C-alpha cells in the first residue's frame, strides 16, 4: 500500500492553547481513512493542516515520502489535495454550473456551454440529475451538498478530505455518496472521512482513527472496530453513552393538530397532500422522512413560516391557521430551525441575549428591559438545559454545535410554550452532545410539553420518540407508536407511495 500523505509529530498551538499534541497520521492511496472525535478533539485542526489552510507549529508533512511544506490551500491543491467543508460554501444567486466553475476558465471569456456540459458530467458521476442551470437557492440543502462535492471533484485530486459530508443528506443520497467514494477508491484516491454517524463510518471506512483532546487515542482497521468500541474510545473514561430506558409518556390531550393540510410545490419547497398530524401534551412525536419528503414543510406550515392552500392548524383547540408567526409564538407555539447558522443564531448577540429574545416582553417594564429579571431567567434556562458557556456574555458563535442547539432550544422554551417544533435538532451536533440534547428534550416532554421533531435518522426516531409519523413525497404513509415500529417498517414507509398497513 502506498502512503500518499503522512503527518508526523504535528503540534499546533493557538496563542497559549495547544490544539494538537504531536499527532501522526497517514492517508493511503485507495483507502478511506475515517477520523472520529467529539467537537474540539482536534479533527478540524488536523484536516486544516493537511489541506494547507493552517501551518503546523511543530512537526512535518510528507507527500509520497518527500518532506513538504504546504504554502496555503492553493499549494495543497496543486499537489492534489482537496477538501469539502462541512459548512456549505455556495453562492445562492448563481447556477449549479456557475458554482462548480466559480472562477471561470483560464481565459477571460466564459465557456458557458463547456461549463454546463462538464457540470452535467460531474453530476452524472454522482448519479444525480440536478439541472446545471438551476439556481443554487432553489436546491434543497442535500442537493447543495452534492453540488459541493461535485465542485471538489471538478479537479483531479489524489486525496480528498470530506468533513461531515452526510450531515444534510437523506439516506438515498448517502448511498449515492458511498458509491462515489467507492469509485474514487478504485481510482486510487486517498480519502479522509469525518462524520458523526457511526454506522456509516464502519461501512465506508478502511481504517479508523479516533481523536480526543488533541491526541490520537486509538487506531484500528475498520474490520476490527465496532460502534461500542468507537464510542468508548471517543468519550474516554468519563462518558459511556447512556441509552436510557424510555419511560413511555401517558398520551395527553392533543395540543397541536394539522388536518387536511395540502400545498402545491413552490420555490424550493416540497408539496404536501392532505396531511394530518396530532401532537399530544407530554409526548414526543418524530416525523421521519427522506430529504424533500415534506417533513420540514410540515413544521413550517404548522408554525406559519409557509402557507398552505388547504387545511387547518389548531393549537390547544383554537384555530390558528390564519395567524402570523409572532401571534403563534404568543400563543405558545415555538420552532427551532434546522439551519442554525442562517435561521437560528444572532451572531452579533451573546448567548444570553440570543436566548432571551423570544420572550423579551416578560423581562420588560414599559418597554425597558429589566436586567435582573432577564439575567435570572437566562441563568435558569442555561442550568435547565445544561448549556456549556463560561458566562451568558460569551459570543454564541464561540459555542460548540450541541451547545448552540441547546441555547436555541432554550430560546424557544423561554415563553413557556405548549408545543415545540424542532427541525432536525441534531444536525451538526456530535455524538456525545446528541445524547445530551435528546435527554433534555425527553425531560421537556415529561414536564408536559408537546414536542415534534423531524429526523432523517431511523434510530433517532426509534430511540427518542413516543410516536412516529413517516412522510413520503408529501403524504403521511405511516403513523405508529414508537414501541410498535421497526427500522425496516420506517424505511419501507419512507419509500412508499401510499399509506402502509402496520
Amino acid at each position, binding site marked *: 500500500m502506498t502512503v500518499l500523505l503522512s503527518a508526523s509529530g504535528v503540534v499546533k498551538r*493557538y*496563542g497559549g492553547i495547544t490544539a494538537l499534541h504531536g499527532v501522526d497520521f497517514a492517508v493511503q492511496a485507495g483507502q478511506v481513512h475515517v477520523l472520529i472525535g467529539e467537537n474540539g478533539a482536534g479533527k478540524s485542526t488536523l484536516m486544516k493542516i493537511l489541506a*494547507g*489552510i*493552517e501551518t503546523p507549529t511543530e512537526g512535518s508533512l510528507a507527500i509520497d515520502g518527500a518532506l513538504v511544506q504546504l504554502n*496555503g*490551500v*492553493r499549494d*495543497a*491543491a*496543486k499537489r492534489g489535495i*482537496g477538501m469539502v467543508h462541512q459548512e456549505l460554501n455556495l453562492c445562492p444567486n448563481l447556477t449549479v454550473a456557475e458554482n462548480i*466553475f*466559480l*472562477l*471561470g*476558465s*483560464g481565459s477571460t471569456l466564459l*465557456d458557458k456551454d*463547456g461549463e454546463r456540459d*462538464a457540470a452535467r458530467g460531474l453530476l452524472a458521476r454522482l448519479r444525480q440529475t440536478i439541472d446545471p442551470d438551476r439556481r443554487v437557492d432553489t436546491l434543497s440543502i442535500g442537493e447543495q451538498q452534492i453540488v459541493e462535492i461535485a*465542485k*471538489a471533484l*471538478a*479537479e*483531479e485530486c489524489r486525496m480528498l478530505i470530506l468533513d461531515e459530508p452526510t450531515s444534510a443528506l437523506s439516506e438515498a443520497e448517502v448511498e449515492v455518496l458511498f458509491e462515489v467514494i467507492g469509485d474514487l477508491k478504485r481510482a486510487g484516491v486517498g480519502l479522509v472521512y469525518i462524520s458523526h454517524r457511526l454506522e456509516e463510518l464502519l461501512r465506508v471506512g478502511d481504517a479508523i482513527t479516533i481523536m480526543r483532546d488533541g491526541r490520537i487515542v486509538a487506531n484500528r482497521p475498520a474490520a476490527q472496530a465496532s460502534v461500542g468500541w468507537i464510542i468508548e474510545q471517543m468519550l474516554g473514561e468519563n462518558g459511556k453513552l447512556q441509552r436510557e430506558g424510555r419511560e413511555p409518556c401517558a398520551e395527553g390531550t392533543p395540543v397541536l393538530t394539522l388536518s387536511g393540510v395540502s400545498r402545491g410545490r413552490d420555490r424550493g419547497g416540497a408539496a404536501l397532500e392532505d396531511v394530518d398530524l396530532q401532537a399530544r401534551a407530554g409526548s414526543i412525536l418524530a416525523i421521519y422522512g427522506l430529504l424533500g419528503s415534506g417533513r420540514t414543510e410540515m413544521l413550517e406550515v404548522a*408554525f406559519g*413560516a409557509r402557507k398552505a392552500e388547504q387545511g387547518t392548524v389548531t393549537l390547544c383547540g383554537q384555530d390558528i391557521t390564519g395567524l*402570523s*408567526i*409572532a401571534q*403563534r*409564538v*404568543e400563543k405558545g407555539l*415555538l*420552532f427551532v*430551525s434546522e439551519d442554525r447558522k*442562517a*435561521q*437560528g*443564531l*444572532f*451572531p*452579533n*448577540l451573546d448567548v444570553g*441575549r440570543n436566548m*432571551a*429574545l*423570544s420572550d*423579551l*416582553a416578560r*423581562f*420588560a417594564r414599559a*418597554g*425597558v*428591559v429589566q436586567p435582573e429579571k432577564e439575567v435570572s431567567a437566562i441563568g435558569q434556562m442555561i442550568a435547565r438545559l445544561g448549556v456549556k458557556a463560561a458566562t451568558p456574555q460569551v459570543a454564541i458563535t464561540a459555542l460548540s454545535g450541541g451547545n448552540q442547539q441547546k441555547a436555541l432550544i432554550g*430560546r424557544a422554551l423561554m*415563553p413557556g410554550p405548549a408545543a415545540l417544533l424542532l427541525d432536525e435538532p441534531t444536525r451538526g451536533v456530535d455524538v456525545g452532545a446528541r445524547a445530551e440534547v435528546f435527554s433534555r428534550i425527553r425531560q421537556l416532554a415529561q414536564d408536559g410539553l408537546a414536542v415534534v421533531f423531524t429526523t432523517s435518522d431511523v434510530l433517532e426516531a426509534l430511540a427518542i420518540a413516543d410516536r412516529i409519523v413517516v412522510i413520503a413525497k408529501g403524504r403521511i404513509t405511516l403513523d405508529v407508536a414508537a414501541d410498535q415500529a421497526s427500522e425496516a417498517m420506517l424505511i419501507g414507509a419512507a419509500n412508499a407511495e401510499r399509506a402502509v398497513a402496520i
Partner: protein
Amino acid sequence: MNTLAKSISEKGKALATSIEPQTAEPQGKAQAMALLLKFRTVLALVVVVAIFAVLAPNFLSLGNALIMLKHIAIVAILAIGMTFVILTGGIDLSVGSIAGLAGMVAGALLLDGLRLSALGVVIYPSVPLMVAMVVVLGAALGLFNGLMVNRFQVAPFIATLGMLYMARGAAMLMSNGATFPNLVGNPALGNEGFSWLGAGMVLGIPVPVWILAIIALGAGFVAARTTFGRRVYAVGGSERAALLSGVRVDRIKYAVYAISGGLAAVVGMLVASDLEAAHPASGESFELSSIAAVVLGGASLTGGRGTIAGTLTGACVIGVLGDGMVMVGISEFWQMVIKGAVIVTAVVLDRLQERLG
C-alpha cells in the same frame, strides 16, 4: 476540461486561504493594538482637535466650540436616526430631502398657514404645534419608506432613493424653487418664535445642541435598554432568526424608518429656523455625511453592530474636521479629498479590528 477545472479550483482555494484566521500575536502588543482599535474614533477625534488647535488659534475658543457643536448637531441628529436604520441592515438615503421638505413645510405653515378649503378657513398653528405637525410629516414619509421595504419588498437603498427624489421634488414644487424668507412669524397670528429653535441659546448653549443632547440620550437608552432596541439588533443580526423567534420584523422596520424620517424633519426645521428662511435645496447630501458618521462610529452596514455613542463620536469627527479645515483655509476641493480618505481609513481599521477581535 481538467486543466480548466484545476485552475479554477486552485483559484478557489487561494481565495479560501486569504480569509484564514490570523495567528495570534504576542499577548501584550496585541492587547494594546486591540484597545487602540477599539477607541479609534475617539482617538481620531482627539487627534483632529489637537491638530486644528495648533493650526488655528481660535479653534479652542468657547465661541468656536459652540458654533462647531451646532454644526455637529445637524449631522448627529440625522446620524442617530440613520443608526437605527443601519442597525436593521437597511439604509435611508432620503433624510436630506426629507429635511429639505420639512423646512419648506414649516416655512409654508408659518407664512401661509394651513388652508382647509372644505371649511374655507386658514389656520395658523402655533410654533410648537407646527413643529409637531412637521415631525409627524417626516415620520409619515419614513413610514412610506417602511411600506416599500416591508410590503413591496423593495431594497431599502432603492426605496429611500425614490423618496430622496420625491421629497426633494415636492420641496421644489411648494415654492417653484423659491426660498421662503423671513420666517419670524407674526404676533397677530400668534406664531412667532420659530427662530429660537435654531438660533436660540439656553444657559449659554445653542438650542440645537440641547436638542441633540436630549435625542442622543433618549436614543442611547432606547438602543441599549429597551425591548425595541434589542429587537433592532436582532433583526440586523439575522432577520430570519428574528422572524422565527416571534419578532414582528415588519413593525421594527416601520419604526426605524419613521424615527429616521422624524429626526430628519427636526433637522430640516433647525436649519430653516437658524437661517430664518427655508430653501428647497437645503439638506442636499446630508444623507451622505450622516451615513459617514454612522460608519465612522463603528457600525456595520450589514446590520446588527453599532452604537449611538459611536455615531455621536463619528459625527463629531466629521463636524470638527469640516469646520477645522475651513478655519485653516484648506481649499474646498482638498476638504472633500481629506473627508473621503478619513471615511475609507475608518472602514479599513474597522475590518482590522474585526479580524483581531
